[in-house]
């Protein structure tokens, strides 16, 4: 398949999967207004049927409602984390590129030091000690993720900042913020978009992992990882209930992965344009 077509196909498929997911996360709980935390022990592990479209868990909670609320929770948190880290990385890159010298070296050193930490372990440890909650989770994952964006944007921006056209604008007296916004950011954007979309998927996976381990998310919050952990003991009795959150995770992670693939092909084309 020619690369142009491959790019279009992966952007369309990935974008489609992601879009469907986001729409479901946004309006799903409104269209299907069932309380995800309402227990009904007589319906524990009820199979899929008219009352429970995807069955019920061991406490008789509606799986469909929990998957939908879990989507909202995971998507919201993952996007928040990625946007925060992206903004941090870009802002610090701006500082580093503009000041250069000691500030740049220090920022790079700090970023490398944080990057060198085993991120998941740090999150596990701190969340394990401090207890969970959505805010803690966002802050912790933001802390371990921003250096990725800093390193990426710094590495691409460094070359642009010493290019003739940036120098020409500096000579013309253009302000640093304008130069950054108009000349440097557009060259970094395709890389950041591609890595960013991949990273939302990874973050969803991280949240699910933490949920599965019972860290970071306070019950009864509907969360896919926690749901899988709850139901894995009943896999013979409730296969559909177990499959639902699993499929949801695969759906969004795969969608973002393919989308990122398409965006990075776009990036390669932009590279040509910018060389």
């Amino acid at each position: 398949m020619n690369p142009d077509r491959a790019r279009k196909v992966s952007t369309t498929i990935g974008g489609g999967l992601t879009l469907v997911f986001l729409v479901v996360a946004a309006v799903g709980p409104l269209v299907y207004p069932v309380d995800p935390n309402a227990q009904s022990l007589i319906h524990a592990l009820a199979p899929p049927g008219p009352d429970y479209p995807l069955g019920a868990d061991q406490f008789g909670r509606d799986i469909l409602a929990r998957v939908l609320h879990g989507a909202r929770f995971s998507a919201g948190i993952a996007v928040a984390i990625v946007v925060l880290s992206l903004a941090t990385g870009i802002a610090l890159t701006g500082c580093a590129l503009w000041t250069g010298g000691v500030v740049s070296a220090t920022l790079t050193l700090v970023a490398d030091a944080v990057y060198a930490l085993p991120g998941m372990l740090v999150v596990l440890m701190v969340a394990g000690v401090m207890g969970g909650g959505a805010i803690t989770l966002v802050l912790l994952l933001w802390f371990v993720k921003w250096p990725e964006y800093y390193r990426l944007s710094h590495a691409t921006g460094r070359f642009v900042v010493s290019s003739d056209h940036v120098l020409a604008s500096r000579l013309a007296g253009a302000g640093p913020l304008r130069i950054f916004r108009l000349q440097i950011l557009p060259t970094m954007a395709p890389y950041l978009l591609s890595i960013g979309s991949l990273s939302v998927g990874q973050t969803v996976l991280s949240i699910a992992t933490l949920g599965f381990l019972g860290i970071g998310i306070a019950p009864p919050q509907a969360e896919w990882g926690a749901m899988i952990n709850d139901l894995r003991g009943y896999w013979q009795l409730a296969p559909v209930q177990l499959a639902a959150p699993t499929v949801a995770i695969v759906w969004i992670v795969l969608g973002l992965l393919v989308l990122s693939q398409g965006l990075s092909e776009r990036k390669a084309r932009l590279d040509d344009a910018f060389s």
Partner: protein
Amino acid sequence: MTRFLDASNLVVRAGGLLLDIPHLRFEQGRTHCLIGKSGSGKSLLAWAVAGLRASDLDIDGEVTLDGAKPPGPLWQDEIFLLPQEPAIALDPTMPVGKQIAEILRWRRATNCAWPDVEALAREVGLTRADLAKLPAELSGGMQQRAMIAMALAVRSSFVIADEPTKGLDTPNKARVIALFQQIQASGRGLIVITHDLGVARALADTISVVDDGRIVEHGPAKSVLRDPQSSAARTLIESEPAQWSFGARTAPSAASPVVDLSRVAFGYSATHPLLEIDALDIGRGEIVGLFGPSGVGKSTLGDLCLRLRAPRSGTVRWHGAPAGRQIVKRHRAKFQKLFQNPITAFPPNLSLKTVFKELTPAARQAAPALAGLLSRLGLRDDLLDRRPDQLSGGELQRFAIARTLVGQPDFIVCDEPSSRLDMSVQRQAIDLITDYVKDRAAAALLISHDIEILRKRADRIYELTDRGRLLSLDSEADGPS
């Protein structure tokens, strides 16, 4: 037996018509030069003859060798194409010796040995040590010689060279020309595409002048160069520096210079300074020429004058005051530079309008001044809506000049303006700047590796030696004073 390469009814389109050649014949053992200004379609013609098909081009017509069609899409061993920009054509990750060996093995003898490569390299003047280097570690001239070694390795009947001396300084250009004479002596047909008439003069038996995708003049080299019939050929010949008239001279004035450097040293290590400038001053209305081979630090000296780089020791003064942080901040807009390559001097993603509106404060403050300047430079308003890749090199050059001049600078560094574009564009750029300098009593440092340009336009000339020192060449400036 002499072989003939014929191109018939060659038409290249990409949207509009780019090239239309009813018939053109090349003869083995003779050298045919295609000359013309940038963007006239010379390179397209070379590509079409060599059988290269770019995906967005629509190529029609027939190319035959002794009446026979090519064996495949390409000519294999019959035609060797030396592409423009050897730096891009060479594999950046492989030592050049290995790359030459590959060509030898594929195209001449599968069992060739390393000594064969070395012998070939000696012919083009590359040492054994050079062969072990990556392309990026070689100068532009050496990269071009490595490409020529490959052309020699292939026993093709024709060699097509696309702008083989682009961006090379005088000594390197002379070497490349000498090597092409060697290719001529080997009995191959040589097709050279160039905008440098010096190359055509040294090599050509016949010349075709290409303009707007058509051949407007064709004939023996001597008669075309001596007695051009078409206006395109006349423009080319007139824009050669040797044909330029002398510019007005300004005598050094006693008033304080616009820029002066005293005891300035620059280098990346304290013990090995790259530049040591005892004194350099440029006064009002003065154009100082800076001459020197590639890579000696001419641009760096320009950047030091502009305080884009800080000297390791010594003082740079602007209007008599040491150019410290405060002075630089206050006068930045008055000390400008015209970049070597207008294409890289504009952000590729922005329209010219955005560049002037958002990124050039002087143009924002004086919109009528900019409009006047653009119309004086012959730039229509609607061109402002385009991005750099939608403009020709000459148009972009004029926009670069507009951006440099709109703030009415006191001092301009012209760093080999447009030396990669054709001479008419170069002349235009240099003349616009020198006229401005003389009219406004500004000052300029004109950097070039072409001494002829400096003789015609500079009031004083310095040579920057390969030891990083300035040498006055004023006794050589033999213009009318």
